[in-house]
């Protein structure tokens, strides 16, 4: 008996909950502001995620790039004076930050050091087969191709090598990623503004009678449009703040995870970057909200 009444209770409760849930969903659909806050949030989250990847990969890329060097091998019969002149010419090329001379003896020592035990055969060489060389460090890896071309034109150079493919690939990939981020940002701005402007349009429509009376009794244009602009601004800020909270939480999780399993990856975690990102995203959302309400206020309020 008591068991049965318990079952009934549960069924009633479930039905009530379903009804309440349905009601909530329906009121959500009737509340354009909430819907558009969620759309703005999705837009801003997409931009944030892209930006987070782009910024981090750029930082990683920059670190890898700082290790990129060009190796310049010299003609065997270059006299010391010419070597020095060549070194100076390389140093004078734009983008070059350091030029290190490596004589053939040093090169051999380094090779031995690198090979360790297995380099024993190097001790038996009659003549050092390695040429003299320069190690050239660059400010930015994307200059490697141009600098290498410049070095080729100098006299006394027998060969120039650098991790060309690799550097070019990295630079290209980062460029694409930033381009995508830009496109996503534009789409998000347009999408968020459109949804806000639609919400404001509905809002203006819902209050058209009040607006008509306000105009007739002499309310200023600023007074009439202020609440609508505020509404757009609030939607923009609320949506982007929610997006920021979501992305920031995910990112902090990622940071902790990376730190524990792959701490060599230089993921950005300093608070200044983070603060900048949060403020930037919210400002971006605010701009989208303002743009959206400005469009609707101009078109539908005709003030």
């Amino acid at each position: 008996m008591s068991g049965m009444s318990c079952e009934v209770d549960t069924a009633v409760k479930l039905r009530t909950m379903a009804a309440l849930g349905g009601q909530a969903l329906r009121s959500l659909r009737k509340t354009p502001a909430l819907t558009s806050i969620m759309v703005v949030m999705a837009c801003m989250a997409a931009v944030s995620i892209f930006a987070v990847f782009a910024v981090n990969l750029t930082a990683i890329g920059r670190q890898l790039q700082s290790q990129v060097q060009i190796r310049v091998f010299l003609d065997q019969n270059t006299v010391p004076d010419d070597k020095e002149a060549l070194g100076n010419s390389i140093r004078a090329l734009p983008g070059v930050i350091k030029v290190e001379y490596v004589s053939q003896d040093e090169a051999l020592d380094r090779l031995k050091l690198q090979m360790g035990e297995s380099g024993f055969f190097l001790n038996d060489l009659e003549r050092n087969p390695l040429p003299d060389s320069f190690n050239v460090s660059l400010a930015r890896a994307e200059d490697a191709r141009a600098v290498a071309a410049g070095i080729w034109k100098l006299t006394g150079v027998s060969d120039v090598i650098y991790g060309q493919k690799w550097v070019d690939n990295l630079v290209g990939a980062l460029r694409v990623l930033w381009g995508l981020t830009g496109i996503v940002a534009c789409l998000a701005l347009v999408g968020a503004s459109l949804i806000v402007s639609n919400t404001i349009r509905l809002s203006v429509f819902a209050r058209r009678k009040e607006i008509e009376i306000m105009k007739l009794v002499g309310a200023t244009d600023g007074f009439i449009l202020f609440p609508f602009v505020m509404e757009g601004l609030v939607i923009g800020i609320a949506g982007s703040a929610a997006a920021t909270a979501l992305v920031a939480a995910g990112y902090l999780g990622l940071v902790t995870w990376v730190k524990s399993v792959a701490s060599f990856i230089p993921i950005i975690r300093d608070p200044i970057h983070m603060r900048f990102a949060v403020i930037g995203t919210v400002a971006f959302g605010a701009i989208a909200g303002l743009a959206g309400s400005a469009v609707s206020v101009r078109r539908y309020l005709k003030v």
Partner: protein
Amino acid sequence: MVKMYGVTRVYAGGAQALRGVNLSIDKGEFVFVVGPSGAGKSTLLSMIYRGTVPTNGQVWVAGRNVVRLRWREVPLLRRRIGIVFQDFKLLPDRSVYDNVAFALEVIEASPREIAKRVPLALDMVGLSHKAQAMPDELAGGEQQRVAIARAIVNDPFIVIADEPTGNLDPDTSMDIMNLLCDINMRGTTVIMATHNQLVVDRLRRRVVQLDEGIVVRDELRGGYCGEA
């Protein structure tokens, strides 16, 4: 108070609502604007509060050239003009009191000012006892009284009424007319467009008759149909 010189209005569709209207209305006058439907009565009235601007000609209100008014000066003009329409234009979700107070709130009057003026306006139209009623609880004549209270709450020097009795029965119409006469008696200029032959003939005030956008009759103490 109101002066029009050669006022012409051509609407986008090509309709010539007004054609060279000259008109002068003094302070404290009571003027009926009559004429068949489409004669241009509403257009003429809207020239005064800058609801529209003339295609040609000049409109002066209280010594200001209304056509030349800057955008930000238009609200200031409208604060000195009370406007009443056939359909009352009340906000259904606000009480009588709040509907009248609305006109002051949106021009950023102080709460003290609002608390002082609204009861005076409601008293003037005889609706003090219905201040907390909602518009849909009122009869048509009462709703129009609320609209009139809203029009006079800011002490305008002109009241413009566009067919204020259009939706009312004859008795209620006469009540509304008496109210407008009271307001006029206090020195406020009243300009009213109407199809109501009864009230025009009963009151015998100045009548301006329009036909196809032209003033065909302007008579002090006239009737709805003129001499004939």
